[in-house]
């Protein structure tokens, strides 16, 4: 991890709610893997902070990496960005998702948040022929998915957090990654654990992961704001996460 400078090379509106920014980044960020993120803030040409609002750096998850040190991020369309804008980036933050070696089908669930933190999984897994189902629940249902690859099956869940063919998609998946919006994600993870236990008497290790996307003040494990109780000890989202095996994560 290090602090580097980048700039916005291109901006492309992908739907009514979101735009994609192509960032020209340092080569240390060009090979980020699914799960890893960056802490970003706008800076001026003297590399000083341009303004203090937002105050903390924002957590940006790449959704795609392109050639020539370009990473693509998805940002709300209401936020204003300009090509050439300089950025200060701390990263990569966190660890890559640990996929099973013989992964054939994966279930991705986004609850009350945009699924952008999960989207970098799509290109490499589709290239390997892995079947991908993306379930959107809560406010995540407002996320438009027309720009996602056709091979990804997208399901809109009901208000009670269930969806059609739920039994089949849960049983079909070799691994499940559940992304929870900040605030109540541990409660939602508990609900998902309950659903899973109805199907599996024991949830195996390395099967069901909770992905946490809270604001990170420091990103280096110093401030303790992202500490979680995991397996009898404390772990940090920014260093050990963002994905935690839900059989180990303490949810209360």
């Amino acid at each position, binding site marked *: 991890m290090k602090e580097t400078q980048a700039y916005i090379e291109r901006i492309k509106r992908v739907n009514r709610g979101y735009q994609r920014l192509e960032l020209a980044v340092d080569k240390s960020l060009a090979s980020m893997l699914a799960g890893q993120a960056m802490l970003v803030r706008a800076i001026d040409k003297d590399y000083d902070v341009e303004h203090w609002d937002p*105050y903390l750096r924002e957590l940006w998850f790449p959704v795609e990496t392109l050639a020539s040190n370009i990473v693509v991020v998805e940002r709300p369309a209401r936020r204003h960005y300009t090509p050439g804008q300089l950025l200060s980036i701390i990263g990569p933050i966190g660890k890559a998702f640990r996929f099973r070696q013989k992964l054939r089908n994966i279930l991705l669930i986004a609850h009350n948040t945009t699924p952008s933190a999960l989207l970098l999984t799509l290109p490499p897994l589709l290239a390997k022929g892995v079947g991908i189902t993306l379930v959107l629940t809560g406010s995540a249902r407002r996320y438009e998915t027309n720009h996602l690859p056709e091979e990804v099956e997208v399901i809109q869940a009901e208000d009670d957090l269930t969806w059609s063919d739920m039994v089949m998609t849960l049983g079909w998946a070799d691994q499940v990654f559940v992304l929870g919006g900040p605030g109540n994600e541990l409660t939602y993870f508990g609900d998902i654990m309950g659903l899973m236990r109805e199907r599996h008497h024991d949830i195996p290790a390395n099967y069901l992961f909770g992905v946490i996307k809270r604001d990170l003040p420091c990103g280096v494990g110093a401030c303790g704001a992202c500490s979680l109780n995991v397996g009898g000890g404390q772990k940090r989202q920014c260093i050990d996460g963002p994905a935690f095996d839900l059989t180990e994560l303490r949810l209360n």
Partner: protein
Amino acid sequence: MAIEITRPGKYSLILSTPVMPAAGTVGFGDDYRALLDYDKLGALVTNPVTIDPWRPASGTRIIALDAGVLAHTGLPNPGLANVISQYRRVWANMPIPVILHLVATSVSQIKRALDMIDDVDEIAAVELGLRDDISEREAVALVEAASRMEKPLLARLPFYEASQLALPIAEAGVDALVLTAAPRGTARDEHTGRLVSGRVYGPLIKPIILRLVGRLRREIPADIPVIAAGGIHSPQDARDYIDAGAIAVQVDTATWAQPKMLERIARDLGGWIATRQKDALSDEWNPDMGHTEAIERRPDPPSPGSKTK
């Protein structure tokens, strides 16, 4: 340059530059090693350490404010004994003194802490964090107990109680006062709709604490150094605190927003104080001056054979 930031005496703390991170911002050890050059700082102030392990706060811990942040971490830490055993080697390799920020709620806890700390040479000083709403009597008792340790003792005062605690705490045996902890506030978490209480950080805190530092500096004995903390986000902010009578400063969440700013403030303040002491012109040094610029600014040496009047 050497700056004594504690009261002169048997145990005192001398730093190369009067800038350090505030407790709770840079961790217990060298977590920021990839982003900061510790050699440029005056000291490391650790995250708050309690006698027994504390778990992280449940629920929302960080709320973004307009040009600031509210933080409620619950001070997660593995307890004093574990912190010492885990970080002792890291501290030994740090190029700067380590100030342990201790949170204790009773005299008996202070005594237990001193038993563990006194023999740890890697801890150069202790900063005692006094909790909000603490009574004067209780605060004085804690400071008196802690001042028996064989290390310099700093006491960080709570923001709202700083005015009434400063003088009694100064007289109770501290070697320096830290003014102050970040003020507490309450904000609504937009994700959950709940109100969350925590400490408030941001540039707007600085004018408030700057005034407090200026006032208290005049009220407490001159031999008690004051270390200012609160809202420092630029070298000028730090200089303002020095002008108000502080001997040193602690930089808090600016480090989260822009890690290199801590280093830059340290370079600026160190150079500013050094040049000020030597009556140098103010524009002769700046923290961003590179070696080339420094050389260019020097007057040309007389060429061989030239004559001067």
